[in-house]
């Protein structure tokens, strides 16, 4: 990487950290401004007022907000996420336990999303307005419009309950495979992963297919594609080397935007499929007014979003020579 590129990366990293700190601050203020005491417990579950007072004093929640905020930032800088009083354990442990599950879910969904989505989009672009394109186009439009949680219930009903092909919830067989220690248990995990990952992946793939089809057609009308055809480059090569390569550039930006979608989906899908991931953890934390846990999950979520964007920009800089010459400056100018 050139010196210019290095400077750009440093600037972007600093900006990313600033964004994440801003998000943490916002979430911190929002949750402290909310009515209700932190240890009010779940609705309908009264907390012991004596215990509650003790907790508030123990975690310095009776101190002024700026002091709490400062303490929180200092602790965060030392890698300390605080203590979750709804789970009675350090937040770090709760995160370490749930994040792998969300990663597995999101990873599988992302794989399905991109493989299926790109494949369909490219296939459609080669057959514009012919029957396969129209059929796939309408199907992707419909699937893209489905509420993910509703599709989840639908798949659960059909493949879980009626056909009984897949388990209806949980990450593994609680009796034979509480931990993954054999090939069978690995298979068991994958088997449990099918429905939740398919739900997220299918909706994502429909969006990706629509996007990729449009990107391919956009490129198809460019002069360099016409030139390639005119000078007798074989069709296959035109599509793969000229059309697809350029269409993939805009796909990289989309890749960076896929993370927020997966995150939103994770909250709902994990709740429906009893998948013990971070989305469900965050939802439960919010209901329990667990300050430290809520702020930490929001922090992780914003890190993921920001890192996704940064990664996409870096990949774009590597893939697009035009950006390398400019030192990877303003990306929007090129894509706009």
């Amino acid at each position, binding site marked *: 990487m050139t010196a210019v590129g290095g400077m750009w990366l440093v600037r972007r990293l600093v*900006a990313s950290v600033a*964004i*994440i700190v*801003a*998000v943490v601050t*916002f*979430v911190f203020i*929002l*949750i402290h401004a*909310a*009515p*209700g005491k932190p240890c009010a417990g779940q609705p309908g579950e009264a907390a012991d007022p004596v215990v509650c007072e003790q907790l508030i004093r123990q975690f310095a929640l009776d101190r002024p907000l700026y002091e709490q905020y400062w303490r929180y930032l200092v602790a965060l800088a030392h890698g300390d996420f605080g203590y979750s009083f709804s789970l009675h354990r350090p937040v770090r442990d709760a995160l370490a336990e749930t994040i792998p599950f969300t990663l597995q879910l999101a990873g599988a969904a992302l794989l399905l999303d991109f493989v299926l989505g790109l494949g369909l989009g490219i296939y459609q672009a080669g057959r514009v307005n012919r029957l396969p394109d129209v059929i796939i*186009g*309408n199907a992707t*439009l*419909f699937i*893209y*419009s*489905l*509420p*993910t*949680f*509703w599709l989840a*219930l*639908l798949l*659960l*009903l059909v493949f879980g*309950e009626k056909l009984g092909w897949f388990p209806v919830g949980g990450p593994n067989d609680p009796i034979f495979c509480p931990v993954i220690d054999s090939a069978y248990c690995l298979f068991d995990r994958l088997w449990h992963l099918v429905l939740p990952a398919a739900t997220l992946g299918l909706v994502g793939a429909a969006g990706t297919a629509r996007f990729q089809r449009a990107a391919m057609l956009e490129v198809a009308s460019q002069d360099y594609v016409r030139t390639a055809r005119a000078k007798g480059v074989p069709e296959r090569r035109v599509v793969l080397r000229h059309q697809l390569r350029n269409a993939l550039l805009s796909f990289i930006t989309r890749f960076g935007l896929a993370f*927020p979608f997966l*995150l*939103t989906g994770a*909250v*709902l899908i994990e*709740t*429906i499929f009893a998948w013990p991931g971070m989305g469900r953890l*965050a*939802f439960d934390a*919010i*209901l329990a*007014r667990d300050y430290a846990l*809520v702020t930490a*999950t*929001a922090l992780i*979520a*914003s890190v993921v*979003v*920001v890192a996704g*964007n940064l990664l996409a920009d870096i990949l774009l800089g590597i893939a697009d020579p035009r950006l390398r010459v400019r030192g990877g400056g303003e990306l*929007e100018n090129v894509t*706009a």
Partner: protein
Amino acid sequence: MTLGSWLALFVALIAAAETARALRQRGLKHERWRRFFRNRTTSWGLSILVFLVTIAIAAPLVAPLDPIVQPDPVHLKNLSPSWTFILGTDVFSRDVWSRIVYGARVSLGIGALGALVAVSLGTVVGAVAGYYGRRVDAVLMRGVDVGLALPRIFILLMAVALWDGLPFVTLALAIGLTSWFGTSRLVRAEVLSLQQRDFVVAARALGAGDGRVIFRHVLPNAAAPIIVSAALGIGNVLLLEASLSFLGIGVAPPRPSWGNMIADGASSLYTAPWTTLFPGLAISLVVMSLNAVADGLRDALDPREEAM
């Protein structure tokens, strides 16, 4: 279903089909609107939207039963679809069709209101940032960067769960307030490129004020992406509302919204799937129609096709 509600439903269907047909007839005269109707799905989407808006407005006529009163939770609960209850009854013995019809008011209302808030705010912020540039732009766009990095679902969950019992207008506002960041970037980019154009420079040279230049000269020419993002925005807001209601913290029962109907139905998913299926189908149809209309609008308003 009573004879009256069948009749009203029939009238609504005819009205929707006729409206779409009439619009298409008129539209075919103009090149731009011919492009809008070029795709068959767009016409279908338009008809579905008109139909749903009609039944939402005429809800008392189209719905045979009260959406909230529970007639007989013991004997009439979870009945499968029949001529009396055309889409069956839910776990509290309420008519699913009547609830979908009344739920259309809530869901479409929140969708429209939320999208209106999001698009107006995004447009104003984007226009101001793009027009004034420099420091104003820097401050606003850094704010937008943060907004885009906010885990929106968490923020909404927090806002809605912690201040419980929000009236649904506030819910729509909350969704709108967290959904404008993308639009503002879009509008800013558009304004930046329009600002260099001769007609804007000319307007400014003639002494037009900032407000006049922005609202009379710049924004009308940036209308295309704004309109498209509004159409997509309604669908997104509707989906978010449904997700929140599904998690049990959106529109408060017993008032029906399509999202909380699915939440009610999910508990008896295996024994009475219709209570989950139909409201979800309603959401999917609306969002699909809006996406189809947005596709059509994109084709119709694309300046590159204008030149061809």
